[in-house]
């Protein structure tokens, strides 16, 4: 089966920044992404959990995008513009997709 090389970008970011990030991705021409809820975790800023949050202040979400390799740079520029001073993790991995025209 024919597959095509792509980049998978996973951004873990504060829930309060989700809309800003997805808007920046839209502006950068990244039309496809998936937002996933995150149950909890721990990092340099301490522990956080989705459970028992009275506000969205401490929650995190995962935004996953798969793009063609040549579209990676504008995507990362857009993401970093939003992350800047905020808590978050960005990681990029190589992946293969079946239908290249969709990315």
């Amino acid at each position, binding site marked *: 089966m024919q597959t095509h090389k792509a980049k998978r970008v996973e951004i873990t970011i*504060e829930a*309060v*920044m989700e*809309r*800003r990030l997805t808007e920046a991705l839209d502006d950068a021409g990244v039309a496809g992404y998936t937002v996933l809820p995150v149950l909890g975790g721990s990092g340099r*800023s*301490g*522990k956080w959990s*989705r*459970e*028992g*949050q*009275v*506000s*969205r*202040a*401490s929650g995190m979400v995962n935004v996953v995008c798969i793009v063609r390799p040549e579209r990676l740079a504008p995507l990362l520029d857009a993401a970093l513009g939003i992350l800047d*001073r*905020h*808590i978050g993790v960005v990681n990029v991995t190589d992946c293969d997709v079946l239908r290249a025209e969709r990315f």
Partner: protein
Amino acid sequence: MFACQGYCVGREMDGILALAAENLISPIILFFALGFAAAFARSELSVPEAIAKGMSLYLLLAIGFKGGVSVADHGVDATLVLSLVAGVILSFALPFVAFALLRVLTGLSIVDAAAVAAHYGSISIVTFVAATSVLTSAGMESEGYMVAVAAAMEAPAILSALWLVARAGGGVGTRDSSMGGGLLREILLNGSIVLLIGAFAIGAVTGQEGLTEIEAFIVAPFKGVLCLFLLDMGLVAGRGLRESRGLLRPGLFAFGILMPLAGAGFGLLAGLMLGLSTGGVVLMMTLSASASYIAVPAAMRVALPEAKPAIYLTLALGITFPFNLTLGIPIYMAVARAVTGS
């Protein structure tokens, strides 16, 4: 005369203690205490997120609607507008008091102190709801439009905190105009405010007739839902305090108790100047004494991400909220009664 002064002060103290004791054994406080204790004991007890959100929507709808009905019954007067203005001024001003107190009592950085200050200028709607419930139990009337005052006090404190940081040369997210516009819109159109004001407006338009239609939904179950919601709040506050108690130096702890008392003092002055009823004065004191843990933390994460959420959330939710709920509200009631002579 001195004997009388001693007698009167003693009687006042007895009154406060009696009110506090009565408040402490009310179901809403005991459910809060249950949640708090369960969290400290590391119990697995938890309220599903969706149910907690549903209950908070219910409480906002009920309190907003009932406030609106009260305004429909009593009509709109100049005091309503003046109370709104007073609420906005208090919300703008209280962060400066909190900031000064924090700089004296704690070694917090300017950014952390400003973020904490924003929480204490804004309000806790759950504390407000609890205070209205205590007033109802005590048979004390209050102005229905205090709900609108609560909504008006949510946001101005955030601007004061950002100004405090900007003045000190700190980074503020609002320097980015798109983020600033977005942030302001998010604050002003915060879901809680929209529902509270919307329900208030619907209550004011439909009046007693509207209340009769939905009374079975928003009046009778109110206290039961509040109990369950406060159980969840107890769990959240207890967990937060358990995880962050290492942060709580004596100065911060003292601030968490002193600032609500100072805020209540300003609320008392405003209530008296406005000529509010005793119940209204209690609510103005409660609003000024309470600290936000819903709208402001989210705004601070966007605008002041360098500020440590563990500090402001622990103070607002782990110290000030339980204090207001257990001792603060009875103190404000006793003081308001003593001052207004009712």
